[in-house]
């Protein structure tokens, strides 16, 4: 009987394994999400660093949109990425990684808003009321423009949390209605109705109608 695999194959196996390990797909900023997830799960911190860099803009915009310009934005953004690192094993790829990350950013922001409400309820006279939504860093800028931004931020903050999430994803993150529905785990119709109600409320809250198309 003849061996189907030559002995030389077994003799060279260790060196070939070594070569294959070295020749494993190298990580770069152009690597796909799947490759970076695989490398991160294999313990490569650089791969995760690239993922953080890739989604930092989306996460920071989403969290800022939800919470406003407050110091806790930084902490919430960090929490989102730490949670992402822990949850990568459970990522099955049903939706894109971007949608997965944005869903985490929304959930963490909602948690932070709940905590804020609880703190306000416990301390009605707390400093939270004194926070200025738009910082005074623009004092040398156009007063009218600063006032407009302040009004806009107040209008966003007055929205119920579920409508705010839809407005942030649909209008600020520029996701489609379907992507928003996937990110928030909601039916398409619910997203449309929340968007409409949120927009109506924003419009009625904003004093100047010249902002709207």
């Amino acid at each position, binding site marked *: 009987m003849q061996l189907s695999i030559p002995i030389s194959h077994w003799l060279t196996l260790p060196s070939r394994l070594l070569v294959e390990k070295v020749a494993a797909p190298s990580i770069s900023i152009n690597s796909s999400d799947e490759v970076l997830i695989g490398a991160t799960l294999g313990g490569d*911190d650089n791969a*995760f*660093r690239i993922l*953080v*860099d890739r989604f*930092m803009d989306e996460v*920071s*915009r989403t969290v*800022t*949109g939800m919470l*406003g*310009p*407050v*110091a806790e*934005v*930084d902490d919430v*953004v*960090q929490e989102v*990425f*730490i949670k992402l*690192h822990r949850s990568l094993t459970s990522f099955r790829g049903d939706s894109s990684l971007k949608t997965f990350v944005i869903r985490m950013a929304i959930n963490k922001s909602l948690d932070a808003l709940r905590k804020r409400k609880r703190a306000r309820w416990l301390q009605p006279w707390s400093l939270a009321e004194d926070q200025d939504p*738009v*910082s005074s*860093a623009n004092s040398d800028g156009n007063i009218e423009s600063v006032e*407009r*931004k302040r009004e*806009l*931020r107040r209008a*966003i903050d007055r929205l119920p949390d579920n409508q705010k999430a839809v*407005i*942030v994803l*649909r*209008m*600020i993150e*520029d996701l*489609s*209605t379907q992507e928003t529905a996937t990110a928030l785990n909601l039916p398409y119709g619910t997203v*449309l109705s929340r*968007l*409409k109600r949120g*927009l109506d409320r*924003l419009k009625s809250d904003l004093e100047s109608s010249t*902002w*709207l*198309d």
Partner: protein
Amino acid sequence: MSIAQHHHSSEADVPEGLSQELRMLVHEERDETMMSMPTERVMRALGASRSWKKENVLSLELVSWFRPVVLAGSFVILMLIAYNVKLSSTNDYDQSPTEMLLGLPPVTVASAYELSIEDH
């Protein structure tokens, strides 16, 4: 406005002017709020959370082991309380339910002074 943009904004009648205003506002707010080098800070926080986990692995393991014990203990205590309450409501004797359950003689002020000294 590109065709794609137009299609996108008309999908659910999103006013493009308001969208632009919101995007600009959030951009400015984010730049004012976020500290520099956010990625580095995330990686540092990740390292810190990992080392915390490593240092506390024993206590976390102990907590996970004792969780069922605590649950079972709480359940037993609740059952005993319920039993005690039920027995108290139907008890016509001078003894407390605990004394009855353990078969102890009733302890009163009078019985405390009635010392029975037996000669052996």
